[in-house]
């Protein structure tokens, strides 16, 4: 039954979770049982992560309120916390605790070391109960018809059990707002919800927005380095890695940007999301750019899908223009932008718009910077990439229009909104720009209702399949959008 992710995996870790405790005990004669249930239920923890003294733990084990699970199995070799089965990602340690040399998992060691001689701990006491507020949702905005239709489908899916739904919404469709109706209903039924996203930035951005929309509900935001690790909550927003600590915890799991790194790259992460879900859980996948495997499932109708082809402001997506430049690589080798770029630059319809330039590699962003500064003295130009310490600051400045031209790698490909930009993708044929990346980058243009159009060019010296597919998909979505109107 848990083969939602079958197609997403290259090598599939065993998803037989029968070793997890099956039911809950009815034993309730223990002090603080309610607060313990809130803290521990649905989690799979290391000994160090239990907020308990040795004698407390023993008492809980004796009363069957906590169960132990062997942490690393040897046949087959697998870490039961992260699902790692890659023998090269296990280390051997001469352990001073048990005086034996045994395995430990190197794959998830950043989240605390899983050792073969130490079990994982799982709560088997009564489930936690969170108070349900009378007024759950405080958001009073209005959905567009396309959004409303998707919101309805999402709500229905959350009400059923053991279902999945893909929400294919274009960049800038207003995905978060579409979830509110469903989340409200699920919270009203006392369900536990998890919104999983691949990136910590998104957790940080979503947390205040959701807290504002659900002011009476405790919401925990989890990412590497987040302060909040313990607050028990019926609603968790987390990076996928943080789900490593959960087992059979959520009735609803919403996976944001299912196509994004690392869901499609790391099969262990789908192991983790599958385990974090309760047996009857609903999965909602959000994406603007489903990958081949999902598209196949949509076509064969094995994955229920709802489309949101229009942006929240009702305008179509800007279509990319493919610009051929034979001198592209010659120019880049001289740390210059080619003629093709400049002729487009000269005849832009809105020269006042800010410019977002996507460059394939980090090295090139910094190399192009000096010559561009010389050629465009009227612009304030910066370059930003993943290893940049001032990354946040520069993005803020670009948003505030203190920077007018930004050179960037794919780190700004998704999840960021600038109101009014033109987008140029330099060397769009480069291998780092796959179809999904191209669509996402093109989706940075025309996001504001005040300036809903924007120009996008793919600068290339030879069309690639990814470019054509990206353009075709954008056109398809616009086509679909017109039929809704």
């Amino acid at each position, binding site marked *: 039954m848990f083969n939602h992710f079958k197609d997403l995996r290259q090598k599939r870790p065993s998803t037989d979770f029968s070793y997890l405790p099956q039911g809950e005990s009815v034993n309730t004669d223990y002090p603080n049982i309610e607060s313990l249930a809130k803290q521990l239920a649905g989690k799979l923890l290391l000994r160090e992560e239990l907020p308990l003294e040795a004698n407390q733990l023993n008492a809980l084990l004796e009363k069957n309120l906590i169960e132990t699970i062997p942490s690393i199995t040897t046949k087959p070799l697998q870490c039961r916390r992260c699902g790692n089965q890659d023998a*090269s*990602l296990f*280390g051997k*340690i001469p*352990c*001073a*605790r048990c005086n034996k040399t045994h395995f*430990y998992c190197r794959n998830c*060691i950043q989240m605390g070391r899983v050792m073969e001689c130490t079990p994982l701990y799982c709560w088997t006491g009564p489930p936690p109960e969170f108070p349900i507020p009378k007024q759950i949702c405080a958001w009073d905005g209005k959905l567009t018809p396309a959004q409303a239709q998707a919101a309805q489908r999402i709500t229905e899916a959350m009400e059923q059990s053991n279902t999945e739904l893909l929400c294919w919404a274009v960049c800038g469709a207003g995905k978060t707002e579409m979830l509110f109706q469903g989340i409200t209903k699920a919270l009203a039924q006392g369900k536990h919800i998890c919104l999983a996203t691949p990136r910590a930035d998104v957790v940080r951005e979503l947390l205040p927005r959701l807290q504002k929309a659900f002011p009476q509900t405790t919401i925990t935001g989890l990412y590497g380095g987040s302060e909040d690790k313990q607050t028990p909550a019926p609603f968790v927003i987390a990076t996928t890695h943080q789900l490593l600590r959960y087992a059979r915890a959520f009735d609803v799991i919403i996976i944001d940007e299912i196509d994004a790194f690392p869901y499609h790259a790391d099969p262990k992460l789908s192991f983790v999301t599958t385990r974090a879900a309760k047996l009857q859980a609903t999965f909602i996948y959000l994406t603007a750019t489903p990958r081949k495997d999902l598209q196949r499932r949509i076509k064969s109708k094995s994955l229920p899908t709802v489309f949101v082809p229009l942006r929240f402001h009702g305008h179509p997506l800007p279509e990319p223009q493919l610009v051929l430049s034979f001198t592209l690589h010659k120019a880049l080798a001289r740390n210059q932008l080619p003629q093709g770029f400049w002729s487009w630059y000269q005849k832009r319809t809105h020269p006042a718009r800010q410019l977002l330039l996507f460059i394939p590699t980090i090295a090139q962003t910094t190399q192009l910077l000096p010559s561009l500064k010389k050629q465009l003295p009227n612009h304030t130009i910066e370059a930003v990439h993943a290893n940049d310490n001032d990354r946040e600051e520069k993005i803020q400045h670009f948003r505030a229009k203190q920077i007018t031209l930004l050179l960037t790698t794919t780190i700004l490909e998704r999840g960021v909104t600038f109101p009014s930009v033109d987008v140029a993708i330099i060397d769009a044929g480069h291998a780092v720009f796959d179809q999904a990346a191209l669509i996402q980058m093109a989706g940075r243009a025309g996001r504001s209702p005040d300036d809903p159009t924007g120009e996008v060019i793919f600068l290339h010296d030879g069309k690639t399949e990814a470019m054509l597919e990206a353009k075709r998909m954008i056109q398809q979505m616009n086509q679909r959008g017109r039929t809704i109107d």
Partner: protein
Amino acid sequence: MTNCLWCNKANEPNVTWKNFFIPDKPDPLCTTCRANLQPISKIACTSCGRPGESVTNANSLCRDCERWQQQRASLLQNRSVYPYNETMQAMIAQWKYRGDYCLIEAFQEQIRQQFSVHYAKLRKNYILVPIPLSRERLHERAFNQAEAIAKLLPFPSRHLLARRHGEKQSKKSRKARIASPNPFQLVAAEQSQATILLVDDVYTTGATLHHAASLLNQARHHDIFTFTLAR
């Protein structure tokens, strides 16, 4: 093909005529990571083995060591394998605090090599004394990093010292470290007159090693050298 122990990217050795017929010993690190992890080549201070251009004062000691000398230090000299730079800090943090024991494999060859450069010809016999952890800390880490280093060296280890449980050295300020009371006590006596070589992971202020050395000095061991992974 195996992956690099540190960056986990594919670790493919460059094929040259030199290793075409007789393959090199496989390196657990890729060439990029290995390039970031170079042993200390120039020693600034002959006493503590600090890396850098050599100091040019009268006794060729750095200021830290001059201060130790004034306190009648019992430690003769320290030598370390790697400079304690950013890469090394990250690797030691992963190795020691995260407990990624395997990383010792990345250091192994160069530990042996640097030991033979600095100590193999200096004395005939050594007794290795790895700096101990407190019982609590040992349970937490499940291994003693100093012992892991000592195991790679061709001399026997003896546990002459025990350590009281206290705050981690790395959490204290420089001043607090130097002023802190001796956390060690002698738990065994060594009869032979072999030279003592204290082994630890990092020499920062030298406080830990000087504390250990002064105790051993009281137990009539006069020649005390130290060997650490990073300086």
